[in-house]
């Protein structure tokens, strides 16, 4: 196994193990008008919560920001080729123990062959 393949495998089997730091969230892909519908699926993710960001120069709106680490994979995670930063959402618990709520994926913060780091608001 090459180093590249080993790191890719570890991303799913170690870093994104729900026995370790990861949790199960639901990916809801957006379907553009008249396109073939894409179905939702459960995936593993590491979610970093409770960062507050102020929107607008006047600072009159604040939104919680979530940093979501997922596998760059179209089965166990989200592949970088399928993601739509104009409507795709992830359902996650805004606080530990609370019911999951859909949050829009607003930015692709980092990407490599193994993983994606997404910003959700």
């Amino acid at each position: 196994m090459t180093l590249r393949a080993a790191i890719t495998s570890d991303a799913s089997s170690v870093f994104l193990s729900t026995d370790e730091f990861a949790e199960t969230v639901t990916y809801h892909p957006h379907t553009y008008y008249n396109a073939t519908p894409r179905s939702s699926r459960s995936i593993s993710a590491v979610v970093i919560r409770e960062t507050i960001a102020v929107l607008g120069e006047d600072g009159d709106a604040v939104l919680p920001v979530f940093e979501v680490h997922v596998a760059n994979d179209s089965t166990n995670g989200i592949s970088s080729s399928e993601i739509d930063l104009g409507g795709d959402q992830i359902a996650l618990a805004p606080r530990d123990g609370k019911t999951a709520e859909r949050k829009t994926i607003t930015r692709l913060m980092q990407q490599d062959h193994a993983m994606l780091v997404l910003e959700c608001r």
Partner: protein
Amino acid sequence: MPVTAKRPINERIAVEIFTRLQRLEAGKEDTIQLSEVIRPKRYATYTPKNLQVVLTQENPEPNPELNLVGNPPAVAYDQQFNIRCHVLPSEHDPTSVDELINLMTAEVIREITSDNLWHTFNNLAIDASIGTIEQIDTDGSFDGANVPVTVTYRVSETDPYTTR
């Protein structure tokens, strides 16, 4: 706060603006349909969506030129409401973001001012005006524009629930 509590004039104006904006959620034959209209809580729980409107307000500014003498006197305020139009189109949408913003802001202004006496907000205000549309800077996560609406109203100094 219980919904049944009595509302001061500026809150009743906010509700009227909110109600007018909500008409755009239903959609019309010749224009775009808003996805949702929101007045955020202190800790905002909404998620950004395409064609979403968020209504906020700034501090009421005293307008002493329109005060009235009396006992108690009547005091006038300019209250700015911010109608924040959010645009987050699909990556597959060929429409330009500027076009979406132009359509959305135009529709918001048309709906807010659709009545001949729109500026009184059901006899709650003296005057109202639409300010300069400002682009919303959200560090690249989504786009949009703010439509500021400044509403001038006058209440009794000791009773902000009653217009004068």
